[in-house]
């Protein structure tokens, strides 16, 4: 097979993935729109009005980038983990394994599917945010790059989870017990400057803090951490997870006997 054949195979996987989440939009696109609207109403409007300013921005403006990023993280992860595990469970992953497609194309196809859903939900939540606050983008390049890299990173995370998952419970454990706490403690709703020094140091071990802050910097121009440091961390995690995912696919972990 040549590059043209590979690009057809890649496009097939991407189209299949996008068609899948669009077909079940009530399960994939609508829930984040509703839950994020509730976040804006409860935390932004009702509670935020009493909190006052944070980093010189009103609370609604401060949390909006974090809420958008939370939706992107959850949905890029959720798309790949459920789709890849579903393909394993129904065994139609075998359609790809018998075909002459290199594993990096399969990986790229699923990641692109996850990124597409992450971006679609990101756009939906941003539009919702505009009903509650004004968002003046400080740096479009940073906004776009950090969104893209974060969606790639969590799509890769979803794939690793799906590779190891043996039952449906296994694809819910990581989002519930790992991802959600990391997101909530990743500076979505507060600035880590508010924390004691010890907890600030602990918070810096949380990779999501870097993504939320890099995105907030792109929107508001303020961040709790150094922006180059944030990009470095994201890229290192992507490199590790990409290599690990490819290694697992090549080895056939969870998909071959």
């Amino acid at each position, binding site marked *: 097979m040549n590059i043209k054949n590979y690009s057809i195979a890649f496009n097939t*996987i991407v189209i299949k993935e996008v068609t899948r989440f669009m077909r079940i939009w009530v399960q994939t696109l609508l829930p984040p729109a509703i839950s994020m609207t509730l976040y804006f109403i409860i935390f932004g409007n009702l509670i935020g009005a009493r909190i006052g300013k944070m980093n010189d921005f009103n609370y609604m403006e401060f949390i909006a980038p974090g809420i958008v990023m939370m939706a992107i993280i959850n949905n890029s992860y959720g798309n790949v983990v459920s789709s890849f595990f579903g393909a394993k469970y*129904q065994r*139609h992953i075998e359609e790809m394994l018998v075909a002459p497609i290199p594993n990096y194309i399969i990986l790229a196809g699923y990641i692109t599917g996850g990124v597409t859903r992450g971006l679609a939900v990101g756009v939906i939540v941003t539009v919702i945010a505009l009903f509650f606050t004004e968002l003046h983008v400080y740096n479009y390049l940073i906004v776009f790059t950090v969104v893209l890299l974060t969606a790639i990173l969590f799509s890769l995370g979803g794939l690793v989870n799906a590779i190891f998952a043996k039952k449906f419970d296994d694809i819910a454990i990581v989002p519930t017990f790992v991802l959600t706490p990391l997101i909530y403690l990743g500076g979505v709703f507060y600035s880590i400057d508010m924390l004691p020094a010890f907890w600030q140091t602990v918070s810096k071990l949380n990779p999501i803090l870097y993504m939320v802050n890099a995105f907030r910097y792109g929107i508001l121009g303020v961040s709790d951490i150094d922006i180059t440091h944030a990009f470095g961390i994201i890229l290192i995690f992507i490199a590790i997870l990409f290599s690990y995912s490819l290694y697992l696919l090549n080895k056939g972990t969870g998909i071959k006997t």
Partner: protein
Amino acid sequence: MNALQITQLKKTYSNGHVALTGIDLHVVSGDFFALLGPNGAGKSTTIGIISSLVNKTAGEIKVFDYDLASQQYEAKSCLGIVPQEINFNLFETSLDVVLNQAGYYGINRNLARQRAEKYLRQLDLWDRRNDITRNLSGGFKRRLMIARALVHEPRILILDEPTAGVDVELRRSMWDFLRQLNKDGTTIVLTTHYLEEAENLCKNIAIIDNGEIIEHSSMKDLLGKINVETFILELDEKLNHLPENDEFSLRLIDSMCIEVELEKGKNINSLFEFLSRKNIPVRSMRGKSNRLEELFIRLLKNKEKALIS
């Protein structure tokens, strides 16, 4: 040229179960080949390794001289696989299942649509192309797997029990389809539990048991090895004891039924003469099973005896 060449293929599962002990097998181009064996003999493991769904422990597989390990893209392009169990997306339409498979093989959409129509029509699935696959009957699902496996027009098609659970009429129509496909040049490897199917369709055969090949020859040569045929005779009157004789191997199944083993070359008229002499009227006669089935059972029994001794 060999369409498939398997050399010293071994598979030991992580729990220590040895599924293949080092099998050698070849299928010539254009052949219609049967791979038979009892449950758990190693057929599906062999097909799984050829399909890249099972990792081998050792050995080599070549598909039209392409090494499956080092030239996997060329080798895989020559292969079409119809697995034993349904493994397509149950939420997609029949047409999408076939089109997506074409895409995985790098076939552009226009050509994929032409091929999908061709094979869905040939397998009587065209009218069902927009049906969600989970709503298809078992027979249609089996046919869809064949259409999907053919969309990249493989040179060798491997079918793992393709007619399991389908009705007689559909089975016969699938036989006709496969015969025509073979006539048109596609090499076919078939595993089946219906030995009648293998006997009717295949030119060459291998029998696998306990992870090793115990027979590998042409169907004609194999069937030539049968020296005994078994018949069931339905009697007109009750019979309580079999008459004594040294000529025939008789067994009373019940008071109205006798099983007879007749050696090859022996005239069946002599049997009826003997029964007439003994005043045993016969109402009807039928073969106990098909020839290959008898041979298959004998080969497995011989293997078992050899293992015990």
